[in-house]
């Protein structure tokens, strides 16, 4: 009970903080729109490649952009933790009875809220420009769920690394290093049968691809629920591992102070 309450207090704190930076909110909301329209226009004709079984590239791309947006935002979650560390806010919390898990979970829950809002915008926009999601509301809900899972995973990782590195430059470097390769080593932009064999194998182990595959099949005309469930389960396990990592990283931080 205490854990839930503390997590809620922290989530509200972070959402309020976000709300007070209107420019940041604006960028957060506009960015996925740009990705969807930009990549949608750039790769518009790939559906003409033989073997690309999709009637509209936007409809194919939208789940990918939803997932990508979730990761790209949540992966920066640790930055504000470093700010808290530098300002002494984290130390203040650590000498209070607040639950350590809540300090991580609060940030992640905030990222999850942002992910869902961004996802709603992307899907709405995709519908406006003519895409359709035959999987219906249920399928879209699954897409949101897996992208929230992925976003939370990266949020936890980012916070864990923030506690270990405690330096903004180092965290920026690590995050930059990881984001684009993970995006391109997946089926975000191209169907699996059109990317090189070795990449397909790598993609099988890429959590980004788990989320894309699960979200795409769930929103398709003939969802493969077994596939979606297995990938969602992988993501859930990974999230738990990353949460444990991040919570334990407080020890590393406390040794250093």
């Amino acid at each position: 009970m205490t854990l839930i309450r503390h997590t809620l207090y922290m989530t509200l704190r972070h959402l309020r903080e976000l709300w007070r930076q209107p420019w940041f909110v604006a960028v957060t909301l506009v960015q996925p729109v740009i990705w969807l329209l930009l990549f949608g226009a750039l790769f518009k004709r790939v559906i003409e490649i033989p073997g690309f079984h999709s009637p509209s590239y936007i409809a194919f791309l939208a789940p990918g952009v939803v997932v990508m947006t979730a990761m790209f935002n949540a992966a920066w979650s640790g930055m504000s933790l470093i700010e808290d560390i530098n300002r002494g806010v984290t130390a203040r919390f650590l000498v209070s009875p607040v639950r350590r898990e809540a300090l991580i979970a609060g940030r992640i829950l905030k990222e999850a809220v942002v992910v869902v809002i961004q996802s709603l915008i992307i899907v709405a926009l995709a519908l406006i420009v003519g895409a359709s999601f035959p999987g219906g509301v249920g399928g879209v809900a699954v897409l949101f769920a897996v992208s929230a899972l992925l976003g939370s995973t990266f949020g936890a990782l980012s916070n864990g690394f923030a506690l270990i590195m405690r330096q903004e430059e180092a965290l920026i470097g690590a995050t930059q290093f990881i984001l684009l390769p993970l995006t391109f080593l997946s089926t975000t932009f191209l169907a699996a049968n059109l990317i090189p064999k070795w990449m397909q194998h790598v993609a099988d182990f890429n959590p980004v691809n788990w989320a894309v595959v699960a979200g795409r099949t769930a929103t398709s005309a003939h969802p493969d629920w077994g596939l979606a469930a297995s990938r969602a389960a992988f993501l859930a396990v990974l999230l738990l591992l990353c949460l444990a990592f991040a919570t334990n990283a407080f020890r590393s931080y406390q040794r250093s102070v």
Partner: protein
Amino acid sequence: MERAIEADGLVKSYPKGVTALDGLSFAVNTGSVFALLGPNGAGKSTAVKVLTTLTTPDAGRGTVAGIDVTKQPDRVRRTIGVVAQGSGVDIQATGRENLRLQGQIYGFGSRAPRALEQRIQQLLERFGLADAADRIARGYSGGMQRRLDIAMALVHDPAVLFLDEPTTGLDPEVRADMWSEIAKLAGERGKTVLLTTHYLEEADQLAERVAIVDRGKVVAEGAPEELKRELRGDAIHVDLDREYNGGVTRALGQLEAVRDVTVDGKTLRARADDGGRAVPLVLQALESHGVGVSSVRVARPSLDDVYLKYTGRTFDAAEAEQDEANR
């Protein structure tokens, strides 16, 4: 008398071989104000971090209100309030929001939300923040942020309050305000305050007992007056109207009231058990030997003198040494 805080042989070193605590021990009586005094880098803040459960010692034992800080950190955390060095204010939130979150963490949000709001309002008024309560703390002055820090540390009415360098970085005027706040806190029934400082006069003014910390150890402990009394005597400082060769020492040689007479150019220094009584005698003796005096001062022994006695270097030299090491 019961001990509110006890540190027993605390040892802590950091990577790169820096020994912050090297067997630090002291004890604080319940309901008193105690100061850890030492230059930057002496280990005061590390001691506070150990005793407030922020970090763990490599060896030794710390207790707060009789609770072991490494074995039951959660119980300790409910007992203490902490004002850390620097600030812990969330500058993206208002003063009131900062206080509310702090209260919620201690469980007052769900147990007694209305009582919490009242308590917050009281604290805001007490610390002169009522007008700024709903402004974002980013716009607060250094003194306001510091007062908010202290208010936050008091939300749950802790029995033991830790103040780590509470006035460092504040303007002299704001520092004086802060001193009276701290003095008021000390007056509260049963509240124990542990304060760290590298301002000698701060420890002197506020604390009932002082422990002088040097290189991770306590080198002297006692009431400020006690420590100074051990130095035996006041310093007498006389400025002469011109240089006299030898005549001056001869003039004072017969006086029993003073000792350790030294003359350096136009400056005469001596020590006396009671400076106030010795001065007229000194002046009389000088006059009768035809020595002209332009000014005279009597200084009570300061904690700086105490520091010099126990560590073999002046406070300023120790600070400079530390700054050098940091570079």
